[in-house]
């Protein structure tokens, strides 16, 4: 596919496959088109040329996306549970049904948020906030999860914890995952494959173990 804003192509002739249950790390410095790729996958941007094909159309309609940041300050009032529930879409009723409550609680358990479920999200730590964002993205059992530099603001320990959780949920739910990052050691620990994007619009893919040092230096 090729994607652009105006006349300049941000991504040119990129071609890659993502298998069911695969954990792909997309790496590359700022400005190589990682966000553009994500926006195209989410359907917020139509590719200029080429197509994005999903094996099942329903996958495209239900992609879990965890953005880098959300600017929620410490005054942010609603609880972790309420924040996760915002993404409920099984019904249009103004109230939350019993089934929906059970669904929210099961995701909260899966993402280790039970202890802070009734605390305001604004008072949660950076790692807890990211877990809440993850829980919200996972609420509708997506077949594809995209983490957009979601670990950038976390310290080393929290990064590991979040990725470990993502890997666990990914395996439990047989979900594919795309992890956009600058953090090569983290990617090596958890991803199956990598896609390296460069400013020269060259794209290389392969098993994460084969990512060599000279290529990594480009990041």
């Amino acid at each position, binding site marked *: 596919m090729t994607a652009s804003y105006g006349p300049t192509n941000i991504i040119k002739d990129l071609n890659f496959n993502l298998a069911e249950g695969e954990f792909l790390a997309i790496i590359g410095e700022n400005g190589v088109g990682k966000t553009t790729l994500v926006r195209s996958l989410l359907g917020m941007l139509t590719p200029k040329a080429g197509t994005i094909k999903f094996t099942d159309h329903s996958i495209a309609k239900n992609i879990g996306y965890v*953005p880098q940041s959300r600017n929620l300050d410490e005054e942010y*009032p609603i609880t972790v549970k*309420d924040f996760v529930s*915002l*993404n409920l879409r099984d019904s*249009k009723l*103004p109230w939350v049904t019993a089934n929906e409550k059970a669904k929210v609680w099961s995701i909260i358990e899966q993402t280790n948020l039970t202890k802070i479920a009734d*605390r305001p999200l604004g008072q949660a730590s950076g790692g807890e906030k990211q877990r809440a964002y993850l829980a*919200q993205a996972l609420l509708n059992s997506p077949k594809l999860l995209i983490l957009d530099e979601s670990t950038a603001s976390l310290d080393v320990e929290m990064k590991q914890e979040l990725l470990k959780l993502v890997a666990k949920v990914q395996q439990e739910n047989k979900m594919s995952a795309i992890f956009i990052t600058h953090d090569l050691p983290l990617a090596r620990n958890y991803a199956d494959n990598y896609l390296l994007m460069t400013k020269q619009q060259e794209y290389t893919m392969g098993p994460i173990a084969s990512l060599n040092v000279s290529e990594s230096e480009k990041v």
Partner: protein
Amino acid sequence: MLSFDFMRHALVAGTFIAVICGMMGVFVIARGMSFLTHTLAEIGFAGAAFGLFMGWPALNGMLLFTVLSSAMVGELGVRSARRENVISAVSALFLGLGILFISLSDNSAASATSILFGSVIGISLGEVWQVVILSIIVILVTLLMYRQLKFDSFDSVGARVNGINGTVISIAFLIMLALSVSVAAQIVGSLLIFILLTLPAASARYFVHSVSSMIALSIGFAVAGTWLGITLGYFTNWPTSFFIATIEVIFYLSGLIWNKKR
């Protein structure tokens, strides 16, 4: 006190106004639109003055101005109106227009006072019906778009990536806000619109932490303030708006103290 028609009218209209303001206020605060609300109130003042000038009821002029301006401004307005300079300019223009229309119409001083400070005690049965019907429209539309409005107001980033059309929600919300501002101005006046549209919601978020309970408590604060205000106004002959303002500020201060003590 309830044997008087004007008091029954005031209480019925006041209750409906308090309910919609308490409900809308939660979204106003979450969307960071307190100042835009104030600007809408000033646009409403100009509209009411225009209504008087044309010989219409003040509420009709207000509705015309606020709904038209919010529909036209839409998403663009939500973004740009947050900038203080734009707010100052728009407020200045509409206050100026309001003053012009008032001076061009007859009996200027009395009508200016009632538009700016509210006059719930003087509300007629026809006006009560108008308030009730408009309030029911606001409540129904808000309930219909409740989930999407909630998502967009409390997590606009998440709402966008999950396919919610923020522009449509913003415009629909602005129109509902315009209706609420025009209706609420009947009781507290356009100068004091903050009292019912932002204070109860701002107080509620200190006490409870889910959207539904915030709405319930915010409505509770708004209704309690309105009832007490109207009652105290009846017994003392002092302005209702003064009492409502004082009561809502007390709720807000208790929220602040409660929050600090925890």
